[in-house]
């Protein structure tokens, strides 16, 4: 077991562990931090899986963007109400059962899956280059559309967050 492999499984365990902990923590702020830990280790897995560009995006957007946004919202909502960041549970049993059912079905399906994947990590060249070209050629339309999407959601978010009318 070399370093890379060790690192790989470490990331996996961190990610899994952080996610599991999210289920059990009562403080929403901790949950956000756990999510960040989880996402960062997923970024690690991406790096080890030869997807450096993706990993960078993951770290930048999630850690730098999404989570900040979420924590920001978290603070905003928690602060105004002045309530603790404590969160309650509900639907525990049925929710768990359904979740476990999905997990079970997926694991069952994976067990019969024959993936002709090369074992271990494949040290191949940098994929950033390829991705860059593809985004400008094959995937140019999705690329542009995602721009429109971002614009739209920006406007939508702005509208939603900014205008309030009478509190009926």
């Amino acid at each position, binding site marked *: 077991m070399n370093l890379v492999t060790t690192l790989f499984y470490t990331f996996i365990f961190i990610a899994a562990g952080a996610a599991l902990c999210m289920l059990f923590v009562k403080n929403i702020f901790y949950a956000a931090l756990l999510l960040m830990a989880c996402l960062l280790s997923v970024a690690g897995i991406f790096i080890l899986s030869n997807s450096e560009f993706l990993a960078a995006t993951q770290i930048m957007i999630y850690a730098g963007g999404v989570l900040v946004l979420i924590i920001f919202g978290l603070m905003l909502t928690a602060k105004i109400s002045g309530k603790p960041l404590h969160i309650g549970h509900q639907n525990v049993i049925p929710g768990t059962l359904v979740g476990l059912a999905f997990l079970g079905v997926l694991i069952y399906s994976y067990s019969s899956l024959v993936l002709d994947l090369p074992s271990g990590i494949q040290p191949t060249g940098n994929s950033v280059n390829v991705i860059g*070209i593809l985004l400008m050629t094959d995937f140019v*339309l999705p690329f542009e559309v995602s721009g429109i999407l971002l614009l739209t959601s920006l406007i939508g*978010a702005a509208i939603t967050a900014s*205008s309030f009318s*009478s509190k*009926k």
Partner: protein
Amino acid sequence: MNLQNQLQWILDSTTFIGAELILLLGMIILLVSGLIFKRDVNFFFHAIAFLTLLTSAIIVIIDWPENPVRLFNGMIRYDDFSSYLKILIDLGGLLTILLSRNKIQKKKPEYFLLLIAIILGAHWLVMSMNFVMVLLSLEMISLSSYVLVGFGFDKKGAEGSLKYFLFGSVATAVMIFGLSLLYGMSGTLDFSTNKFVSTLLEQKSPLVLIGGLMTLSGFLFKIVAAPLHLWAADVYESAPTPVVAFLSVVPKLAGFGVLIKFTLAINLFGQSPYNWQVILGTISMLSLTIGNFSALWQTNPKRMMAYSSIAQSGFLLVGLTCLSISGIHAILFYASIYLLMNFLTFLIIQQFELDHTSPTIPSLAGLGRKFPFQSIAMGIGLISLVGFPITAGFTAKFFLFSSLWEAFSQSGKPILIVLFVFGLANMVVSLFYYLKMPYYLFLKEPPSEKPIPATIPLWENLLSAFLVVLLLVLFFQPALLMGWINRINFVL
């Protein structure tokens, strides 16, 4: 293929997406003018939005494709099937703009911008042949819808918006997971290629099914079908009426556009080890039952129409269950008629809404005498929704069930005949609640003298008259539309 050719191809491709570019242009104009102009030039925004959609529709008609063309390296395909749906979508948008009264919406430019964004997303969605495009355009529709639902800017709207968002995001997440599984199984994102089909044929893993069903659930969310229908009633109740009218039609049409293609792909031309007809048939029956039976005891017209929307999706799914070309034609016809009758009904609901902000059905009692024209128009719309002669709703259901019968007589699968009888029986059930409104309008006496709602603008009456006439004409001459639809040569 070298880079040069690819770039050339991209340039060539752009010539085919004129309508979409116009929509984009409209969005930008609205955005900019919204910043520049004062907020009270509502008519201007109306006009811009209307013109944009009109131009887009005209361009789609002018550039009617003779042969399907794959654009942007197979990201989208430009064919008559999608063009037809695009026209319907644009029409839905136009009707929504006509429905959007001045008083109701503030923030006009943003409102229209988001409306057009949804239409643009719908355009992309019906053309898309690639999971990436499916995801992006679906999200474009969803995100704008979440915001639009809250455009009443009141408490209810905020709640509806939140519920819609939470439900929708989970549905999207599940769909994305499903897409990733399908990608893993097929090794391609382009679901119209041979590679997709041939690889999946070799795959024996149940992940194909799981991925397929998870992906399907994203589409089912969009078309409001069971079991992902639960959000509908709450959301429809909270949203402004034009938005409900819009949301009950346009995303549904777009969703069906992609659902049809996806279903045919995942069914692997009938060679799939899984019986997708049974799945679709069951979903259809579930939607029919849930929609119709839940609608029975509703007293809020919009909630009722939400369940009606679920049931109507069930009817549309009947056509999809056929998995045949005539079934698809029937769906297209039904969708066109559904567009007309649904908008007609919502138009009148909105007219009756004017004074009492959220009318219950019993509060409509006796209004038939005061508003004979509106009541009759609503009656015709609802009768059409039931599927009763002499409205085009009957013709649409007739074609739908004919194609189902045809599929049955060719394959003899029991699920089809079960669905056939089941669907027709549901027609009877639907009568109960659809006729509730005409029943109160005409047969019930008003409890006391009520304040008469404000006068209804002439052009709205003209619009409803136009829709009524269309519904009647398309009953007597379905060939006007069906002839056109029949020329659509659907290939995957």
